[in-house]
């Protein structure tokens, strides 16, 4: 028998990468969305722990890093947004969600699901409350858009 029937090195190759008909996403505009500004948000949270959460919220959702492939930028943006989301009081969540437009609610849903991926001590409870309020506005469609989006946050 041939010697190389014992070798299983070929199993480490991902053959789909070599398929010439493999679907590649269109490359759009490059890295111009760097994610929200961390320093600005830190200030807002520290100085006005109760009053200006809305502003912090809106700033956090600005400039989502959807177009970059750099995971570090995405992680940074996610951490900032999660900080803002977890420091909200439960009663303030609903007006915050109501202040967003359609694409804002979709973006919020994307961040919520990203936040679900790595649960920490008390993040899940508050994220679930955010999810409930965002779902009331966005409906099943916003969740479907989280699942089908090619550009993830």
């Amino acid at each position, binding site marked *: 028998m041939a010697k190389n029937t014992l070798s299983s090195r070929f199993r480490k190759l991902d053959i789909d990468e070599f398929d010439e008909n493999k679907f590649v996403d*269109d490359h759009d505009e490059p890295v111009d969305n760097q994610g929200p500004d961390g320093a600005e948000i830190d200030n807002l949270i520290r100085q006005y722990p109760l009053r200006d959460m809305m502003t912090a919220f809106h700033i956090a959702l600005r400039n989502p890093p*959807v177009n970059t492939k750099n995971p570090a930028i995405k992680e940074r943006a996610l951490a900032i947004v999660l900080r803002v989301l977890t420091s909200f009081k439960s009663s303030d969540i609903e007006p915050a969600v109501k202040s967003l437009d*359609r*694409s804002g609610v979709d973006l919020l849903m994307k961040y919520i699901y990203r936040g679900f991926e790595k649960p920490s001590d008390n993040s899940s409870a508050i994220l679930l409350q955010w999810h409930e309020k965002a779902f009331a506005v*966005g409906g099943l*469609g916003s969740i479907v*858009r989280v699942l*089908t989006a*090619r550009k993830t946050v």
Partner: protein
Amino acid sequence: MAYHSFLLEPISCHSWNKDRTQIALCPNNHDVHIYKKDGTKWTKIHELKEHNGQVTGIDWAPESNRIVTCGTDRNAYVWSLKGEVWKPTLVILRINRAARCVSWSPKENKFAVGSGSRLISICYFEQENDWWVCKHIKKPIRSTVLSLDWHPNNVLLAAGSCDFKCRVFSAYIKEVEEKPGPTVWGSKMPFGEVLFESGPSGVSGGAGEGAGGGWVHGVCFSHSGNRLAWTSHDSTVAIAEGGKTSTISSLSSETLPLLCVSFITENSLVAAGHDCYPVLFVYDGTKGSVTFGGKLDVPKQTSQRGISARERFQNLDRRATSSETTEQGLESLHKNSISQISVLEGGKSKCSTFCTTGMDGGMVTWDVKVHTHTLHTHTV
């Protein structure tokens, strides 16, 4: 509204004959069954058995009374009625994956087949060889073609595909027709030319990052051919107007994805999908906006009866809410996703009746006049 349950299995696809007395449908197997209407009853009069794989598309040409079917066996057959029997003619599509959808052109001298081989086959009849011949549109399609719709000028073809784009192609075959005049979508139309492409790299979308997010399940030209609507798997419905290439109006809906769409007037369309009821959308050409017009399946309000404490705890246990309603199933007529809509009366400009079939094996005919009256929406 009339609901008729044909089968317990999904209806894969259906098509009506010209006077709407017969319906050809595929009961989720390799055959096509033709049912004839007798008053309120439906009787099966023909069984068309030729395909070796599930039949994925059926189209019945109203004028020439021919049926074209396509299936997962990579073939298409054109059926002609000879006496009392339907006789098939094989059409070689030259595809190496399943065929997904088929559509006769308005003049019925050619038909288009969308397939998983990432191409569209345009088939026309060659008189000298007495044979159906096909030509392929390949570029720039990069995934399965899920849906097709012809423009009224018999040349342009809209295709929705799994590569997240909706495109308008030219399917001009010089052997069977004259050169077409210019339309709002363009004036130069050689075979295979892309006259319009939706999505981020083509034309800019209307609602932020909504454009280009999901497989395009259903496409439909308006009656005049100037407008094109498509529904996508990211729960959006979008309309593009030919000519003004920078305006695509899209609406991100709150429902589950819609699978099929059809214009019922020049300004409104009806769509249905995984939510099991048809919905109306209204397009405002001046503002370039699509708005939700309402659900067309308004269930009768069942009387509210009191809920016992035991039921309350049971609900809490099963569904995490102790809500009043204890409905066990869906309130809509269809009990499973709706996969296809077809206009019955009135055409796409003044539709008065349309029909939906779905995965529950049922078919519902809907009257449009009744519903637009109860919804108090736009004037048709």
